[in-house]
């Protein structure tokens, strides 16, 4: 397992249900500079499939998913 990336901003999306984690992530990543990293904390089980596909679809890069006890951390680098 690689080391956790260091995020430029962390979005805590716990408690939010589909499709709001994606919408909030979209809003936040647009505030970052190209090359900066957004961390999203989500406990929506759909996020496991949604974030990798969403990152690809929006022209960004998913750097990794790190599972904790009852949530996961998604690291997305803004490319587009």
């Amino acid at each position: 397992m690689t080391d956790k990336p260091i995020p430029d901003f962390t979005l805590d999306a716990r408690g939010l249900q589909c499709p709001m984690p994606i919408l909030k992530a979209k809003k936040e990543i647009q505030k970052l500079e190209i090359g900066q990293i957004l961390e999203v904390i989500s406990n929506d089980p759909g996020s496991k499939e949604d974030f990798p596909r969403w990152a690809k679809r929006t022209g960004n890069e998913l750097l990794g998913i790190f599972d904790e006890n009852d949530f996961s951390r998604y690291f997305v680098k803004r490319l587009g």
Partner: protein
Amino acid sequence: MADIKRMALVVHSGTLDKAYPPLMLAVAGAASDMQVDIFFTFWGLPLLKKKGLKRAKLPGIMSLFTSMMRWRIKKCGIETLPNLLKAAVETGNVRIYACTATMDLMMVKKEQLIPEVTGFMGAAGFLDIASECDVQLFI
């Protein structure tokens, strides 16, 4: 960025169970850089009336369990229908169309509809939009 994908949705039912999926798809699509066009026709049109989304019920005899369903929806952290529509339109990627034939049929005036409605058109107009889309769904 990759080419812009487009989605066309037809909402023809006014019940709670059929109002949620198109609005959730619209928000997800908009957040995924898709351009989304939604056509509200027949029993879908009353959803665009002021308080229409707020008043949507489950279909038939199930309507008795609407408040229980709303409570479950809230408990799960799912947004309300009015909030989903607002969030969709606020992205700037979602356009809402009211079916003019249905407005005639149901005697609905433009002033009775929510301000989020982008335009008014008939079947041919929306088919023109849909024919340019990558995803077309009838819900």
